[in-house]
């Protein structure tokens, strides 16, 4: 049972640190994720807008265990139009401490008003499993460049271990180079995701 819980929370962690997986060319990104059960810091560098490389340090507060992952994300396809952008990414991670690894795809489409994204992963761990999520978002107002921007979102996710679908609200704020995302579910409590680009 402990192994299932550990993997389940690693899954939650990974799925929440994938917003904006690649920065602009030469851009650095630092992310912090925390809730009452886990904490992570993920840094990535984007040599090009098409891919990023990074390292992620995880700490599972329940089992007091840490893990380090090397991560690589590649922008397979992007379609820009005047009012929208669509992205399709390949993503992967390998552990530095064992033979565990993750690979999958992530896609999104957004306008200034609407957002829809999906994520699918295969996780090779002590027990292999898959997970997926869909996220829908709506901007209640359209801010100008430099303003505080707000998104109201709904996220639903499921993995092959728990076989339970969880749906919960997420609110996202960003201003300048800082992004804050808060999600809440009765079972998993608060998700706090902070991102800084430089």
């Amino acid at each position: 049972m402990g192994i299932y819980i550990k993997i389940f929370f690693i899954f939650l962690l990974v799925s929440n640190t994938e917003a904006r997986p690649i920065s602009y060319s030469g851009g650095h990104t630092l992310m912090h994720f925390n809730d009452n059960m886990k904490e992570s810091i993920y840094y990535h560098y984007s040599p090009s807008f098409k891919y990023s490389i990074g390292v992620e340090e995880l700490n599972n507060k329940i089992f007091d265990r840490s893990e380090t992952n090397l991560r690589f994300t590649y922008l397979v396809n992007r379609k820009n139009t005047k009012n929208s952008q669509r992205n399709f990414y390949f993503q992967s991670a390998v552990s530095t401490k064992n033979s565990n690894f993750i690979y999958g795809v992530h896609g999104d489409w957004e306008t200034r008003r609407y957002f829809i994204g999906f994520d699918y992963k295969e996780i090779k761990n002590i027990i292999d499993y898959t997970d997926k999520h869909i996220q829908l978002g709506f901007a209640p107002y359209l801010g100008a460049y430099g303003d505080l921007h707000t998104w109201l979102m709904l996220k639903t996710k499921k993995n092959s271990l728990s076989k339970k679908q969880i749906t919960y609200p997420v609110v996202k704020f960003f201003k300048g180079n800082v992004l804050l995302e808060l999600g809440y579910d009765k079972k998993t409590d608060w998700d706090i995701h902070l991102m800084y680009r430089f």
Partner: protein
Amino acid sequence: MIRLLFITIFSINLISSDEDHHMHQNSHNHYVYVQGEKLEVDQDRFKSFLDGLSNSQVAVVNVNGMVCDFCARGIEKTFVKDKAVKRIDVDLERGKVLIAYTKEKEIDFDEIKSKILANGQNAIDFSILNI
């Protein structure tokens, strides 16, 4: 695994198609010297941008894919490294980037396209306004 590989390979082919499409669009560059009214910019924002500027030239660039403030940040960071750039602003609502250059700068649209592409967006065309 095979499904993932197939989707990935298929999508890689789509990249070049999109870029080719944009290359055709970008071949229609034009230089228009106007007073600002015909540039389809937010007039208040544009006046604020021009405030205090003199002996300059302003490039008004139409950009595709600039749908979010957080995503457009890199454009500003890239252009301000150029010493010939005096000021830059982003108009998210109209999908435009305003760049104020020194008078001496020879504005090259390919250079602008390249810098905006480095941020992941596509510059479609531009106009130049002399101040």
